[in-house]
Structure formats: structure tokens, C-alpha cells
């Protein structure tokens, strides 16, 4: 039996950061993890992380894991045991773990438990069919082992995990048929949601899965609308074709080991379920046991790493004899607590704040800079358009800009403000932004075109001169475009510059290779590009006649969504600029209204 000053159980971001911190303070540490390599969930994250540039923002998850691993392996104070499954915490500060079929024991003076969380399950009919997976399992198969568990996916839950998974699946070449979300709004970050919407993935809000369809394996799913109490509304059931259903309805902390270690546990739903009671410095009701990461509250990797650091610093005080060093550590702890508070001061952390208040931990309000929404900037200049209006803890763009053109300030939950006098059009922020929320724009008024630079993380890359479809925020076809330039970046967020008619300079946010299947131009009436082109080719070159013949723009939206797209097609086909084309007459009602609105004598309440 070996003895250590500290043992860290769980080698995810929290545990790794704790081990690095402990090692750097000269504390003899053992880190245990049941997987083959350290990293926890980081190893399967191919997306760039949000957060503070000091905490690996803009770095992809698996790369963060690699960096942390390197630090751990370089430090002789740290011993690493992987493929080691802790089976229990026993009296006399003893950790027992299994490795290679053998039993091992180790003792500690201080223990950090950072076992993370596991995915919640969702009961639905046939949920035991092969083809129903937890989202994390799909990520492991796909990103760690290179195995695609299916071709057509339906994702249940629109939290960040569900949204990120959808994006990763598309990157891997799979088809995502939709994301089902029981709430009336998207759970995860808006930028994550926009990223996949632009790729054409629909998000079905106020819907749930009723059943999986199939006998041997999943062939599809029945989804239905739910009311405000999450009851299925009968008659709203629809079938979706999919061979894989991914459930990502949240995580729940793995608190078993903490309980065995004598930590008091409370049920705090805002933090994810049963969590160990702890103080601001991650110390539990057992003064020798600390926690960090998802076990303490379901959040993300950055906060996990900071918590790991705080816990480690507090633990290390026990082993430091020199008063001056103790004082330094005290300062470090306070700095980290402040950083953590900054991360948690945004609207997306409201639940966490409420949960932490139950432990007497209050997050101070930090002022934010004024938001300007999406700034358009000066027409004609090559510049960055930052579409980031949701307050999330991230300042990668500010850090990426060498010219000081993007300002976020101390509270990184502020939304970025661009100073277009300073923006040089270098596009570094575009490739740095983890949310792919920045694109480049330059209008050419003389030629009535616009150059749009779109961050692109799919393969293969388009080539210069290639014809592509330009798409809008929902992945709908807007117009044809020509690739003017493709700029490759070492971080794999490349930028594809396309030229579009100037009318679409603000509409185009995405780009795709032309598909065999013709896209819907008019979604109300389900009129495809192909159909419109055929009618124009048959000699109908007048918008009014085209409209009457195909019903394009005549549906419930009154053409608000597609009229400009149709005029663009007509303009391209006829060579007549859009400004010279007749664009029809607007007629009431501007939005469809029920007959009941005009029922005289009906009670207006």
C-alpha cells in the first residue's frame, strides 16, 4: 500500500488541473482515472472551447487534454494511474482501486474527488432498441474510436451537448434529422444552435420523443408536441426517419464516492441533483475531502478546471510550512474565486448561482459593458461582423484581435463591441471564435456584389472558382455564389470567401456544396429552386406570372421569407437587376389572422 499526500480521483479537466496545481506546489499526488488516458470528456470534444483565453478558450477540447497531459507527465510529483477503477473509499483514508484485474490500495492526507457526471436517461417506448444512445456514447464512438454508430440521427435535448453533438455528427458526414426539445427555448448557447441551424438542422421546440420505431433496431421515432406541463398533445404525433436516437437530456453528478468518503450530500436540482455540500474553496463537510468539476455542479470544462485549481490550492496549504508561501496561495485562491465568479455572472449561469446560494456561496455582480447588438460597420470595408448577442462567458475574439478592435472588458459575459476604425479585416477573430459567430463582409457597390467570408469546419473544402449554394441562418437556399478565396488556418477553422449579389449581403450566413436534391425556395408552398428555374426557362420571366403559376411567395408568410430569393433567381436567369424587377403588391393581412378575429359580438377577452 502506497501513501500519498493527495489523491485525485477522476482525471477529467477538474482533476487534471488539480493534479497540475498540486504538483507545482510540490505536493506528492496520485491521479487515478478509469479510462486509458487522462482527459475525461475533453478527449472527445473536437470543438473549440469558450471562455477566457487564459483558460484555453478557442482551443479544441482534445487539444486541451493533450496540453494538460503533457504538464502532468513532466511533473515528477505526480503519479498517474490510468485504467484504474476506484471501487471505494474506505476508513483510514484509503482508496481502493482495480487495475489489470488486481486490487490496489493507497492512502491520502487530502482527497479530491472529481468523478464528473453521467448522462440522464429519458423514458420512452422502445428506448431499449439498439440504436438508442446517450449523446456521450456517440461522441466516444465517433471521436475517440472513429466508429459511426449510424447515418441518420435524431437528437433529444438541445443543451450544449446535444447541439455540439449535432455539429460533430455533420462534420463526420452524418445526417442530423433534427433536435427535439421539450422546453420552449433552446437549452444551450445560441451560437451553438445557430451553427447547426445554418447547416439546415431543424430544432423542434416544445416537442418530445414518444417512442422509437423498429423491431430489431431503430428505424425512426415518433415525436409529438407537448404542453406547458410537458404532457403530449394528442394528434400532434409525427414520424421521423432515423437509425440512431441520441439522448442528451442533461447530466447528473456521480456522488457515490463522495458519500462513501463521508461527505454530506444534498439534492439541489439547479446543480444537477445530489451534490456534496461544500464551501467556496471546494471543501466538503469532511475537511480532508474536496470536490471539483461536474460532481460539484453541472457546468463546463473551464469552470471545472478553475474549481480543480481552487481545490488544489486549498489542499496544498496543508503541506506548506513557510508563512510567506501560504500567503501567496491565499492570494492565488482569491484570484481564482474571482475569475470563477466572473464566469458565473452571466444569464446562462443563473441556475448555478441559485444552487450555490444554498451553500451560502454568493456570486458578486460584475458590471458589463453596453451591448450594441449586431453591428453592421461601414459598408464597403472588409470587416468582421460579430453575431454574438447572447451573454456567455467568452472573450476569445477580444484576445484574438491584435488591433484592439474588439472590446469585452473585465466581465467576459459582456457581448463584444467592435470598433470599426481599428478593424483591419484580418479575420483572426473569425477563426478564433468558438461559436463560429463571426463572419467577414465587404460590399462592392460598383458591381453590386458582396464578398462574404464564412468560417468553415467541414471537409472537403470548396475550391476557388467553385459554384456553391449560399444559405441563410436556417440553412435555406438564398442564391448561387462563387468561391473567391479559401483561407486555411492551423486551428482548422478555415474561411471560405464567396461572392453573392449585394442584396443578399446580410442574408447569407452559410455555404454548402450544391446538392442533387433541389432546395425549397418557398417553404410555405414547398416550391423548389428547380421548379422555379424550370418555369422561368419555359418563358415565364415576369415575377407576377411566375408567382401565380407556381404559388411561390403566395403562402401564409406572404413572401417575407422567399420573395427576395425568387427575385434573385429571376435576376440571375434574365440578367435584369433585382431593382428593375416588379416585386408584386403587398396585401393585408400582413400576417395570417383567424376569422375569429373579426367575429362581431365575441368576447374580446
Amino acid at each position: 500500500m502506497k501513501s500519498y499526500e493527495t489523491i485525485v480521483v477522476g482525471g477529467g479537466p477538474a482533476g487534471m488541473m488539480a493534479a497540475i496545481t498540486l504538483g507545482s506546489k510540490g505536493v506528492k499526488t496520485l491521479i487515478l482515472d478509469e479510462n486509458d488516458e487522462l482527459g475525461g470528456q475533453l478527449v472527445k470534444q473536437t470543438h473549440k472551447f469558450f471562455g477566457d483565453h487564459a483558460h484555453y478558450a478557442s482551443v479544441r477540447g482534445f487539444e486541451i487534454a493533450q496540453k494538460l497531459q503533457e504538464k502532468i507527465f513532466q511533473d515528477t510529483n505526480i503519479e498517474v494511474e490510468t485504467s484504474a477503477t476506484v471501487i471505494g473509499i474506505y476508513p483510514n483514508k484509503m482508496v481502493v482501486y482495480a487495475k489489470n484485474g488486481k486490487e490496489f490500495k493507497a492512502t491520502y492526507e487530502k482527497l479530491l474527488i472529481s468523478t464528473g457526471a453521467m448522462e440522464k436517461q429519458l423514458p420512452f417506448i422502445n428506448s431499449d432498441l439498439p440504436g438508442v444512445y446517450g449523446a456521450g456514447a456517440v461522441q466516444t464512438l465517433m471521436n475517440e474510436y472513429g466508429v459511426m454508430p449510424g447515418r441518420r440521427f435524431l437528437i433529444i435535448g438541445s443543451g450544449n451537448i446535444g447541439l455540439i453533438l449535432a455539429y460533430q455528427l455533420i462534420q463526420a458526414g452524418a445526417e442530423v434529422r433534427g433536435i427535439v426539445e421539450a422546453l420552449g427555448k433552446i437549452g444551450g448557447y445560441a451560437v451553438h444552435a445557430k451553427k447547426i441551424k445554418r447547416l439546415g438542422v431543424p430544432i423542434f421546440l416544445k416537442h418530445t420523443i414518444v417512442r422509437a420505431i423498429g423491431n430489431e433496431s431503430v428505424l425512426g421515432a415518433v415525436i409529438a408536441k407537448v404542453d406547458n406541463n410537458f404532457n403530449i398533445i394528442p394528434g400532434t404525433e409525427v414520424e421521423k426517419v432515423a437509425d440512431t436516437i441520441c439522448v442528451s437530456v442533461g447530466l447528473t453528478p456521480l456522488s457515490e464516492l463522495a458519500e462513501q468518503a463521508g461527505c454530506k450530500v444534498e439534492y439541489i436540482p439547479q446543480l444537477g441533483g445530489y451534490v456534496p455540500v461544500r464551501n467556496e474553496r471546494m471543501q466538503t463537510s469532511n475537511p480532508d475531502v474536496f470536490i471539483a468539476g461536474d460532481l460539484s455542479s453541472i457546468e463546463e470544462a473551464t469552470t471545472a478546471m478553475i474549481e480543480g485549481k481552487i481545490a488544489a490550492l486549498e489542499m496544498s496549504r496543508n503541506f506548506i510550512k513557510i508563512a510567506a508561501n501560504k500567503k501567496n496561495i491565499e492570494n492565488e485562491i482569491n484570484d481564482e474565486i474571482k475569475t470563477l465568479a466572473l464566469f458565473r455572472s452571466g444569464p446562462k449561469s443563473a441556475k448555478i448561482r441559485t444552487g450555490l446560494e444554498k451553500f451560502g456561496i454568493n456570486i458578486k455582480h460584475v458590471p458589463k459593458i453596453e451591448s450594441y447588438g449586431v453591428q453592421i460597420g461601414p459598408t464597403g470595408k472588409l470587416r468582421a461582423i460579430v453575431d454574438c448577442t447572447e451573454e456567455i462567458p467568452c472573450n476569445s475574439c477580444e484576445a484574438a484581435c491584435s488591433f484592439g478592435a474588439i472590446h469585452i472588458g473585465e466581465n467576459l459575459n459582456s457581448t463584444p463591441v467592435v470598433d470599426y476604425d481599428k478593424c483591419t479585416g484580418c479575420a483572426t477573430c473569425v477563426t478564433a471564435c468558438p461559436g463560429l459567430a463571426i463572419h467577414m463582409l465587404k460590399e462592392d457597390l460598383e458591381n453590386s456584389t458582396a464578398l462574404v467570408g464564412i468560417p468553415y469546419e467541414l471537409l472537403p473544402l470548396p475550391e476557388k472558382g467553385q459554384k456553391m449554394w449560399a444559405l441563410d441562418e436556417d440553412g435555406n437556399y438564398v442564391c448561387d455564389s462563387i468561391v473567391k478565396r479559401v483561407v486555411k488556418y492551423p486551428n482548422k477553422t478555415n474561411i471560405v470567401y464567396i461572392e453573392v449579389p449585394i442584396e443578399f449581403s446580410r442574408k447569407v450566413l452559410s455555404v454548402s456544396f450544391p446538392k442533387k436534391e433541389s432546395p425549397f425556395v418557398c417553404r410555405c408552398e414547398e416550391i423548389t429552386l428547380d421548379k422555379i428555374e424550370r418555369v422561368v426557362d419555359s418563358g415565364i420571366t415576369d415575377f407576377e406570372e411566375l408567382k401565380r403559376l407556381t404559388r411561390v411567395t403566395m403562402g401564409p408568410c406572404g413572401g417575407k421569407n422567399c420573395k427576395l430569393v425568387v427575385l434573385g433567381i429571376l435576376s440571375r436567369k434574365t440578367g435584369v437587376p433585382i431593382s428593375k424587377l416588379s416585386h408584386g403588391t403587398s396585401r393585408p393581412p400582413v400576417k395570417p389572422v383567424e376569422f375569429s378575429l373579426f367575429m362581431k359580438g365575441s368576447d374580446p377577452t
Partner: protein
Amino acid sequence: MISQASVVIIGGGIIGTAIAFNLAKLGVKDVSVFEKSYISSGSTGRCGGGIRQQWTSPMNVRLAMRSVKLFERFKLDVGMDIEYYQGGYLLLAYTEKEVEDFSENVKMQRGEGLDVVLLTKRQIAQKFPFMNLEGVKGGTWCPTDAHANPQIANIAYAMAIKQMGVDLNTYTTVEGIDTQGGKIVGVQTNKGYVKTNIVINAAGGFSHEVGLMAGVDIPTYSERHQILVTESINHVLDPMVISFRNNYYVRQTMHGSFVMGQSDKKPAKGNDLGHTIEFLEEMAPKMVHDFPFMNHLHIVRQWSGAYDLSPDAQPIIDESRSVSRYIFAVGFSGHGFMLAPAVGEAVAEMVVYGRSKTTDISNLGMSRFASKIEKEHNVV
């Protein structure tokens, strides 16, 4: 645009293009059609799309029956699917007097060979259980009445005549008709002059003005009629339903939307085609009363079109007595679309043979206004 034409047709609506189509079929292809806007921009593109044979005068019935025959073959003849649906027409009666009048009409219509019957309220309820028939006494039912998409029909004719070699000019306004000694010599447009000896006035809501261009005072005038369309739902309603008492017509298109309209209490005169909120306020209660499922149906669009009205609400198809070979097919009073194929055939025959051979339209001449006017009652 050609500089010389055998025939000039003024108006590219369903009547003008149907005449051009029939002329081309009879071999007359050097025909110029002038449309001041786009195809289906006038009354055709704005109409309800009903195709009815249940009229109160035998000649109207015959013309409409011929029209239905041609509509049945439209796809083959003209080459496009116009969402034609033979779902019948249901006319509702609310008083004993109305039932009596309807039964007289049915007798006459059956005499003309039309398959039409009188229905009791119970029979109507069985056929259309989703309707609220409060106050209804009975109705008439003609299963071969139909409806179609007038805009597509108009464009279909336009595309067909272009292919057949007809000189179709959109966005071309006729500015004058040149006559010499009671004969036509040419037509002046904003895009040039075309020599011709035959002019057909098919100008719909502008028929009176175009008449005056050749010095002919045609007794027609325009009146605005409003109309609306709803979102589309699954098919439930086969026929066009007309209630003269409740003042509406309604049909469900093949596309699933409902198209409906009424006669306003004080219809605006002329071709000023606006729309009023009163129209929606008047339509909603009566439509929801008679069709309760419509309560939560969404209105998508309202618009209006001009009825080109004649003194007896019946078409005027004739050749001018003062200007030789000045033919008019006007005054359709809100039912031009449904008659167009037969009128196109008849007028083409008038041009080529000097008279309509297939259908007798002798009663539709101007001379009828010299005697007492018998107004068509069955008009919404």
C-alpha cells in the same frame, strides 16, 4: 410586336387569350394581343375561379355548358393543368319563394340538358354534414359545375398562343383605335402602331374606355368586388357554395385554401382596386356561421378585382353596327372566367365565319338593350 395583323385583341385576360387561342386553332395566327400589364393582372387573376352552368337564362346555360365541355378538355387542348375540379355547385335557398324560383330554374336548366337537381335541406345536410344549415330551406345541386385556377388558366392560354405564333405583347397599352369611314385601319400602342382591319375589345374592366377609342359607347361600367383566400387545409369541400341571401360564394381550391367573396353593400365604382377592413368584418361572421370549422382558419390575403358590368349582368358579345369589324366580348359581370373557353370559340368563329357556329349567342348582342332589360339574378 408585328407591324401588321389580321386581328388585334385588346386585353390579355382570359377572354382575350382564349379568343387568340381559338383564332390560332382556326389558322389565324397573325394576331396581336395587347395587355397593358402582365398576364392575369386584371379581373381574371383576381376572380374566384368558379365554373357554373346554373344560370337563369337558357342562353347563359348553353354557353356555360359548352364552356364546361371545353374546360374538361383544357389540359389536352391547351396543355397545362389548371387545377380543374368538377366538384359541383351548391346554391342555397332560404325562403319558399327562393325554392320556387330555384325549382323553375332547374326545370329550364334540365330542359337544356343540364344535370341539375333540387335538394331538400336534409339532403344537403347529408352531403355536407360540416355545414350549419340554419335557415336553409333547400338548394340546387349541379355535379358537373366546377372550379379551377384562373391565373394558371390565363397563363396557360398565353403560353399556348405564344407557341402557336400569336404576337402577345405584355406591358403594352393601347392608346387609340384608328378608323376611316367606319372601318378599322390600325391600333396605336405605347410601343408602336399595328395595321389591322379587325379589333376585338376584350378589355374587361376597361371595356367602356376601349369602346370609346373607336367611338362606340358600350353600356358597361366597372365595380370593385372583394375576395380573400385562407391558409390551406385538407380537402373537405367539393363544390362552390353560393348563398344569395347571405351574399357569399366559397370554394376550396385543389391546393386546399378557401377562396371566397361577396358583393359589397356599396361597391366602389371604377377600377380603383383597394380593399377594406369592412369586407373581412362582414365575411367572417357569416362564413363562420355557415361553416363553423372556419372559426380558427387563417386568412392569408385579401384583394379585389373589377366586375365589368353590363345593364343586365350578362355578357355583351357583338360586332359594332357603326364601326365594321369592331367586335366586343365584354360586360361579363363577374363570370367571364367560367365562360371564356366557349366565348373564345364563339368570337373566333365570328371573326372567321362571320357568326358563332358552335354555340348560339345571338341573344348576347347590343340590340337587347333596346327592349326591356331582363337582369340575371343569380349573381354574387
